[in-house]
């Protein structure tokens, strides 16, 4: 793929990206959210059409207009979310659409024999006649790879295949990858786990914000340099943390200890004091979002202790979290946050219903007053509060979301990627707002993939890697470099820093 461009309305998602793959090679794509990995893959697999550049396959230029074209050439994708038919047998999933036939119809015996041979060839102990959903995620992924092989594919794209596997399953997967290499199949591998990437890759290509940052052999690139290329900013941005937060005589709002949430969180401890802005740093897949989800009760089966204001509490569902004075601004604003067809007034008041209603009836006056208060306080730019939320800009939608949660008068507010997808000006405003919120004594747990954003705003930063604490930084120690160093080098959390 040569100098690929992709333009979405308003954003240039890919700027002249180069990528090449040799047969029998594992080539890893790395980059944070919005770096353009998925976009590049989607162009290769025909989901999107490219706006510029060339795709050359076996020395010939090719054009993909639909998802079947690349499949015909032998480009197969194993997606993160499994794309197979759960209620059918393993064998049928492998040969779906290519059934061996006799005069009496489908020849099930031959089908299962062939499928079993393919599975055995890969050294998998999977039975062809078993229903697919009797197997776990890992095995289903393997079946998906076997299907690709049986289609005589030349390239297999593995999009974050390890994100939901445990250590042993990852080993199995790597065994399969080695066999694919031996068959001269090229592999595009996407993962956020650095150790895995170094263990399996022949070459690594780094993308950042849609531009090509270079291709390296693992031996030529240290983990630290790799992280720097993915998240580092060359230009030091003005505005280092100007807050003067002194937490020495403040109480803890929330303390989380030894949180486990299979498979992404494996023993994390995090604590936030009142009025403090605490950052969670780490690469994508480090468990930072999942920790927040556990705290807000999205993860029913998580284990560990959670204390709110010193009292041990059980948070099994978001309603428990609300009762304990927690608020959560999700990273998926569009899917989980805003209700686009409702007005700003309704969107602001929807979580604070008890305060503004009496015997179940909404008191219109109180609702209007509430909306007015927050529109003014957060400087939401809108002609009236009756405007539908979908008509606002990203930054203003984010403010409405913040207003909604502030209306519940929380003690702690979790902000997951609060500035994603909003423009630079609005970003600044949101950051100012966060500081203002903390100034009122509300604890803030801030999650961001932009390290500079954490550096600018946080009083304390917990660095995570693969679901474990890597280290903690207090305000004078916080710098971009220190965070990146901690991501690659383990620096155990000492109890003193925690308390």
């Amino acid at each position: 793929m040569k100098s690929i461009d992709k333009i979405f309305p308003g954003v240039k998602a890919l700027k002249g990206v180069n990528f090449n793959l040799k047969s029998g090679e594992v080539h890893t794509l790395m980059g944070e959210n919005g770096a353009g990995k998925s976009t590049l893959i989607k162009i290769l697999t025909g989901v999107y059409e490219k706006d510029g550049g060339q795709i050359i396959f076996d020395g010939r230029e090719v054009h993909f207009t639909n998802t079947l074209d690349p499949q015909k050439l032998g480009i197969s994708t194993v997606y993160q979310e499994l794309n197979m038919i759960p209620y059918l047998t393993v064998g049928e999933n492998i040969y779906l659409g290519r059934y061996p036939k006799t005069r009496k119809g489908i020849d099930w015996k031959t089908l299962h024999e062939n499928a079993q041979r393919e599975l055995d060839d890969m050294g998998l102990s999977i039975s062809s006649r078993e229903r697919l959903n009797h197997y776990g995620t890992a095995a289903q992924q393997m079946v998906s790879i076997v299907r690709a092989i049986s289609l005589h594919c030349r390239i297999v794209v593995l999009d974050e295949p390890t994100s939901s596997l445990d250590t042993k399953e990852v080993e199995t997967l790597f065994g399969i990858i080695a066999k694919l290499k031996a068959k001269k199949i090229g592999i595009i591998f996407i993962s956020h786990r650095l150790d895995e990437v170094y263990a399996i890759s022949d070459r690594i290509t780094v993308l950042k914000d849609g531009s090509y940052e270079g291709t390296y052999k693992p031996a030529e690139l240290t983990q630290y340099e790799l992280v720097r290329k993915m998240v580092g900013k060359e230009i030091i941005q003005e505005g280092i943390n100007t807050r003067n937060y002194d937490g020495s005589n403040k109480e803890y709002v929330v303390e989380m200890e030894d949180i486990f949430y299979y498979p992404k969180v494996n023993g994390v401890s995090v604590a936030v004091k009142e009025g403090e802005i605490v950052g969670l740093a780490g690469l994508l897949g480090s468990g930072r979002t999942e920790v927040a989800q556990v705290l807000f009760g999205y993860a029913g089966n998580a284990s560990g202790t959670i204390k709110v204001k010193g009292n041990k509490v059980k948070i099994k569902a978001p309603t428990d979290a609300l009762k304990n004075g927690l608020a959560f601004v999700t990273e998926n604003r569009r899917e989980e946050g805003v209700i686009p067809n409702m007005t700003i007034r309704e969107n602001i008041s929807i979580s604070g219903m008890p305060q503004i209603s009496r015997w179940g009836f909404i008191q219109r006056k109180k609702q209007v007053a509430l909306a007015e208060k927050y529109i003014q306080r957060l400087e939401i730019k809108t002609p009236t509060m009756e405007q539908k939320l979908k008509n606002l800009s990203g930054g203003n939608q984010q403010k409405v979301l913040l207003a909604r949660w502030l209306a519940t008068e929380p003690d702690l507010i979790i902000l997951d990627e609060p500035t994603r997808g909003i423009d630079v000006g609005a970003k600044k405003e949101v950051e100012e707002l966060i500081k203002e919120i903390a100034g009122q004594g509300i604890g803030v747990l801030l999650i961001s993939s932009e390290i500079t954003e954490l550096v600018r705003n946080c009083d304390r930063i917990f660095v995570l890697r693969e679901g474990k604490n890597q280290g903690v930084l207090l305000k004078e120690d916080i710098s971009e470099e220190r965070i990146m160093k901690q991501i690659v080098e383990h620096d155990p959390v000492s109890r003193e820093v925690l308390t």
Partner: protein
Amino acid sequence: MKGIGKHIKNNGTVLGLFFMMLLAVIINRNFLTIENLTNVLRQASMNGMIAIGMTMVIICGSIDLSVGTMIGFSGFLALYLSNFSLILAIGVPLLFGLLVGLINAFLINKCKVAPFIATLSMMMAVKGVTLILTKENTYFAEHPVESFSYVGRGILLNYITVPSVLFVGVSLLGAVLLNRTAAGRSMYAVGGNEEAARMMGVNVEKTRLVAHVLTGLMAALSGITLVSRVGAAYPLAGEGKELDVIAACVIGGTALTGGKGKVSGTFIGVLIIGLLTNIFNMQTFLNSFWEKVITGTLVLVVVLIQSIQENHIKIYKGSKKTASVK
């Protein structure tokens, strides 16, 4: 133990059928007479044929509510045309069944109307047309060709009725289609995971079209059989039957979420509902409206068992089989 458990799980509906028969024998000494059994099978056949088509539609993840009123419509058409010729009396209603199936599929595939809504409006439209054509009266044919009554009343070898032959034949063909042809397997793929099926090169629209057209045909066939036996076309005949048919599929283990179901299961489901009707007709101590209560309970029990099985798999994720390199 595990083997027995698996057997019960796979053949729960068969056990249900045996239980029903046992109950029937206890309540009515005359149950096990050949006359009665022939009767049960013949009565079940009308719904049964449609249920085979409905199984395919549900496996595709769709639904067809228009089959009930299609019975009345095709029945009237058949009886009216039986004044002229047998071929017309059978061919034209079938043609309309095919047409309604095509329209349903068109609405669902091309206009992206939810299957429930698309076939609901079809159901109402068909009912309206029937009422207009019959002028809201039961229709009797003036001089029908004699051979027409054979479809519903014919008897082969003393005890085998033509409708039950049709039902068994349709079931066998349905089973072959679902198990042995690519078209049938595509239905499972589409209902199991539509996007994945598309990615694997299955023609999703065509698959749904086939299922809906077959179901339309079956509804028409059922209507023809009914009027042929009764000799009169009641405009509201078949109203509400779509729900009985869906209940039979569900009792037979077909999941309304799509991707799961078997012709054999539906066949037994149809028999269970048929037996229930028979039992209620043969006893005097319970009001016959209790039949509906029991059918409803039965459907609920089957769905609950399915849901427990599904959730069992999800809760004990750890017990799922894992792959390993030998």
